[in-house]
């Protein structure tokens, strides 16, 4: 048996090394850490437990039968964040570009199944070239299975997606179905990369034009949060996680509050203008009323005329929606309406009270807004508030 144990250790050591060391080193030069390093930064020390390390692919096309893909290019399992259970997966770009094959997809689906059964959140670390084309339809089935599960879990347990390095093709749609998308500054996400776009549309578009964090956080609104680098994104994800309950039948964890819950805020008499037409910075108000002035801002640089953020009052996590009079006078255009509506619906699904700070002239009017369906898109905000049953 000693021999068998020694052999097991050799096998495990080999599998945890991931892909080609040269590829790993090249990614590291670009600030991209290994799949396992990322998990170790995200989770509490020594809390990660791995599933399915020994999984192998079953593809016999194009000489693939000779190819070894350690862990099928994704590390999966569970761990803890501030001692709370979370299910995780981390795609390994150093192994076949982190591509999504049949067994790769099966591994991720198992993570989501366990999260649903145990009513615990899911955090996916996405870094993948998309479908593994050599497997033809094998991965395609599993993308369907994954999207189905993302939708089934939506509103039952929180789902958070991290985008690191490149995330392409079908792989981008799984984050699109989850509750929050966090990107690093140098990451990119798109449903089709430059080569595809050139081949299909004849258009030259760079990777960053198609999906940079800058574009997704200011123009498309796809990204909820942009972090400086991979170490920062893991820290920020832990901060966000602490605002969320583990499932839709629990409340968010209440932390000890060092900020006196009933202190006066006399500065607000200076901040709030006497004239209702004079703008003021809503953040000046918010940071003075929430616990310790701490806000976790969602979509900070998108539709800045409305603010969406998590904060605490006397240790209790809440969602904050506030007009920003500094930007367009705090008017609500279709982008602001959709941004806030989605945030309110998340809070309602997960028992987070919503506090609204209102200083807005009204919905935006004019031909641009009307032709962009301000009636139905603006109505999403009305619907979300009317539908909400949280405080």
């Amino acid at each position: 048996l000693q021999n068998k144990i020694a052999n097991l250790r050799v096998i495990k050591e080999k599998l945890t090394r991931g892909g080609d060391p040269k590829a790993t080193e090249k990614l590291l030069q670009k600030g991209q850490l290994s799949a396992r390093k990322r998990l170790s930064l995200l989770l509490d020390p020594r809390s990660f437990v791995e599933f399915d390390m020994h999984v192998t692919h079953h593809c016999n096309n194009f000489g693939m039968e000779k190819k070894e893909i350690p862990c099928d290019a994704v590390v999966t399992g569970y761990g803890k964040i501030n001692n709370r259970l979370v299910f995780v997966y981390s795609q390994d770009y150093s192994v076949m570009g982190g591509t999504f094959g049949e067994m790769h997809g099966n591994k991720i689906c198992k993570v989501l199944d366990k999260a649903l059964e145990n009513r615990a959140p899911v955090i996916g670390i996405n870094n993948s070239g998309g479908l593994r084309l050599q497997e033809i339809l094998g991965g395609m089935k599993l993308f369907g299975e994954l999207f189905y599960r993302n939708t089934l879990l939506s509103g039952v347990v929180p789902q958070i997606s991290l985008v690191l390095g490149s995330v392409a093709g079908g792989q981008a749609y799984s984050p699109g179905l989850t509750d929050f998308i966090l990107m690093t500054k140098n990451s990119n996400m798109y449903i089709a990369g430059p080569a595809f776009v050139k081949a299909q549309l004849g258009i030259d578009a760079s990777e960053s034009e198609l999906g940079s964090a800058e574009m997704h956080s200011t123009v498309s609104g796809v990204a909820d949060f942009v972090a400086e680098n991979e170490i920062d994104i893991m820290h920020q994800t832990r901060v966000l996680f602490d605002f969320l309950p583990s499932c839709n039948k629990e409340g968010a964890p209440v932390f000890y509050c060092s900020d006196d819950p009933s202190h006066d805020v006399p500065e607000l008499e200076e901040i709030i203008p006497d004239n209702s037409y004079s703008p003021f910075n809503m953040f000046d108000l918010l940071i003075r009323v929430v616990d310790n002035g701490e806000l976790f801002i969602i979509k900070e640089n998108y539709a800045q005329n409305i603010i969406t953020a998590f904060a605490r009052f006397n240790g209790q996590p809440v969602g904050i929606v506030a007009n920003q009079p500094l930007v367009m006078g705090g008017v609500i255009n279709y982008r602001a309406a959709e941004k806030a509506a989605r945030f309110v619906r998340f809070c309602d699904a997960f028992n987070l009270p919503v506090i609204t700070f209102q200083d807005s002239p009204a919905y935006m009017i004019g031909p641009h807004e009307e032709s962009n369906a301000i009636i139905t898109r603006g109505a999403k905000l009305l619907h979300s508030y009317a539908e909400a049953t949280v405080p």
Partner: protein
Amino acid sequence: LGSKYIGADMVFAYPGAEIVSVAPKTAAGIIFRKEMQKAVDPQKEEKRLVSEYYDKFVNPYNAASWQHIDDIIEPKDTRRVIVSSLEMLKGKKVLRPWKKHGNIPL
């Protein structure tokens, strides 16, 4: 949208259907990149490889072999299979975990 795995109950295809994730030429360009680079006449080689890929995988029989579709049908039977499927599915019930509502991307 018609994937069984995101919830389609029955999926049928005509014999001429092409069921793949990306266009054959694009897929072949990625899968066979090395072969094409090595080839004496890359254009001829590309044509050969794309056509091989096409014959082998871009047809409904391949998708049916994966159970992605329930049957390959003749166009004349279209109405009949829809009517029959609806009748078979009359009692369909699906259990879902409790939620107030989902969080659809807005």
